[in-house]
């Protein structure tokens, strides 16, 4: 069990602390998200984070690591990822190289052995040598387990990996240990905080879901989004911020192929800042719309309405918090 001397355990006592702590490192979170981290931390369970691209799933893990001052170990999943790339691998080349060198020394080593049996016994010692820590190449998962003070392990886009890989993760996610046949079972002293992110490319298996807490991050409402923009792009002027958030919120009500998410809003805010814009104008929006919308059809669909939407967004900006009509 964990002791109170660890920095991390002492840090998470209630949900408000999490909100404040993540806020300090620039991640504005809703209560649900903070609750999820709180529960995950106390039950030592991984969190499966879902939500559309750009709502800050990966960022959540990064910020948690930054806040708790833990090393972040990130594993990007892709099709064909297997345990040799995720967990550990024997340094095959090194082993081979060593055997080649050893080949020349073989005569010296075995020179005075009287019988074949004695030679075998002598060689067996070398065999074990080749499958020791020295030749072990730890990959992200193993590294995360071996961190002495815990770590934040981010398994990114788990939905892109194969089903077999998902099954293989189960042991690690539930017991925080792995078994390497030649060495034995490695168990983590301090279980890492695990985030798995998914874009819902495919349904995750039930077994995996069962072992994880599930967190769905929706697109933020105007109030939260404004806070996020304020935290991330602090230089932007208050009124403009309000207006641009209102505009993005309006965009999200359209029938678009890809709705702009937080990362797009932030990009756009940065672009506006860069252009020294001090107010939203239809022309300006028209020129920078490609920052928000990533499909030609979407841009086409929105373009005729820009003037109207700009007007509304400006009104909203003057009124106070952005309205979601």
């Amino acid at each position, binding site marked *: 069990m964990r002791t109170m001397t660890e920095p991390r355990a002492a840090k998470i006592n209630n949900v408000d602390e999490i909100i404040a702590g993540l806020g300090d490192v620039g991640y504005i979170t809703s209560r649900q998200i903070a609750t999820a981290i709180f*529960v995950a931390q106390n039950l030592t369970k991984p969190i499966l984070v*879902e939500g559309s691209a750009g709502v800050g799933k990966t960022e959540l893990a990064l910020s948690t690591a930054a806040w708790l001052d833990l090393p972040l170990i990130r594993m990007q999943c892709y099709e*064909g990822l297997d345990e*040799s790339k995720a967990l550990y691998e024997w340094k*095959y080349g090194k082993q*081979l190289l060593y055997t080649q060198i050893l080949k020349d020394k073989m005569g010296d080593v075995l020179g005075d052995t009287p019988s074949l049996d004695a030679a075998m016994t002598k060689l067996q010692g070398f065999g074990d040598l080749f499958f020791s820590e020295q030749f072990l190449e730890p990959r992200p998962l193993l590294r995360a387990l071996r961190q002495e003070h815990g770590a934040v392990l981010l398994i990114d886009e788990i939905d892109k990996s*194969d*089903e077999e890989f998902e099954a293989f993760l189960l042991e690690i996610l539930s017991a925080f240990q792995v078994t390497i046949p030649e060495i034995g079972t490695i168990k983590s002293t301090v279980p890492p905080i695990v985030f798995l992110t998914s874009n819902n490319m495919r349904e995750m298996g039930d077994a995996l879901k069962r072992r994880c807490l599930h967190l*769905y991050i929706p697109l933020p409402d105007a109030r939260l989004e404004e806070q996020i923009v304020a935290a991330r792009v602090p230089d932007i002027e208050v009124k403009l911020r309000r207006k641009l958030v209102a505009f993005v919120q309006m965009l999200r009500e359209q029938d678009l192929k890809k709705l702009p998410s937080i990362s797009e809003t932030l990009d756009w805010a940065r672009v506006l800042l860069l252009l020294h814009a001090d107010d939203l104008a239809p022309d300006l929006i028209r020129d920078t719309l490609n920052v928000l919308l990533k499909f030609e059809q979407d841009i086409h669909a929105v373009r005729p309405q820009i003037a109207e939407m700009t007007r509304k967004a400006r009104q909203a900006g003057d009124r106070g918090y952005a309205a979601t009509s």
Partner: protein
Amino acid sequence: MQRPLENFFRALRAADIRVSPAESIDAHRTVDLVGYADRQLFKDALCVALAKTPDEVASYNDCFEMFFAREEFSADDGTGNRQPPERADSDAAFGEELGNVPLAEMLLAGDGSEMAAAMEQSANRVGATEIRYFSQRGYFARRILDDMGLRDLEKLIAQLRRGGTGDDGGDDSGDATDLAQRLEQGRRFLLDESRQFVERQYELYARSNGEALREEFLMETRMSNLEQRDFARMHNIVRRMAKRLASRYSRRRKHTRRGQLDVRRTMRRNMPHDGIPFEVLWKHIKIERPKIVVICDVSRSVAAAARFLLLFLYSLNEVIAQLQAYAFSDRLVDVGDILEHHDVETAIPEIMAKIGFRSTDYGQALDDYEENFMADLDRHTTVIILGDGRSNFTDPRIDIMRRLHDRSRAVIWLNPEPETFWGTGDSEMPRYRQFCHVAKTCSTVMHLERVIDDILRSYARA
């Protein structure tokens, strides 16, 4: 608190959220952690532990609100009958009788939350949360009340009505009738409350059950017998099935078989290292993308089945990139475009208007196919023919069928008729069957799913 939580899990299960024993343990631990004091925290924390998809989160929220929304017994709903009776000073005279009937005491005490709690306990004892069918509501309402001691209450009321308690009779008979009246009001109030309570249990635990039963039934109904009003529901079922299959087969174009050394490639690759195997290559399996040709009979007898087959296949478009669809009754046309550009709801009537409902001629249709589209066929293609094989005694063109069989990877014939009908009347099925790799009866969506699953799996294995 164990019991309510367990009941909550059951309500969640009824709402289609899977709560396994392991999850319920997690939930208990979560509750231990966060406690009950902060409702929002309690809700969010349980949500994180139990709901595993965005859909489930939505149903969780609904379910949570409904489950934990039991207010106290409401005093007044405007009509005035739903009101617990009040205690009168004269009641003291009946202390002994009332003492024997705790329910009456409780009614007179008028503590809504106490009554609600008592009702819940009784409901638990009689198993009201086990309710499954709409028709059970009256039964459970009665049983709850019986458990709460309604019979004793009724006896007491009758006794009071007869005029006092017998032995000391006389002067307090007026008070007795008054009390009887008030208790009667309480009884009606209880009846009302229990009915509402059971109603809520039904909503929580059983309603989706009915929906599930309905869907199960639809899946096994012959497609030709489906009624118009079920089509919307069927579309949903079919889409879900397609999604299930899609998630099973859409990924993994390549499948590594780690552990099996590809000796040939390893040796070749390591020639420069003097044959010392520095780089090791492993065997892997490639999974082909399915290529499917569908030929649908859309004459009246098969139209319903055709509609679902097409819907099914187009819902699978993530998996089946190359789908060609043709429909015929006497002449055969390419309907891929229509299906691609319209919703299935509008596309099917359009196809039917174009070529449906005419007399069937399989020979002509096959001839059309060979002339116009046969060139696309190769050994990676699976041909699915959906039809009853009834060709109005025209030339069945078995020769084309043979060529179809020879050129394609597999020919699968799905026939909505049961096998015993094949070969009767104008059915050419036995002759066509010779040239099919698989010929099956396919009359329900369940069959459909199974067949398509088999086809996709065969591609995965190759």
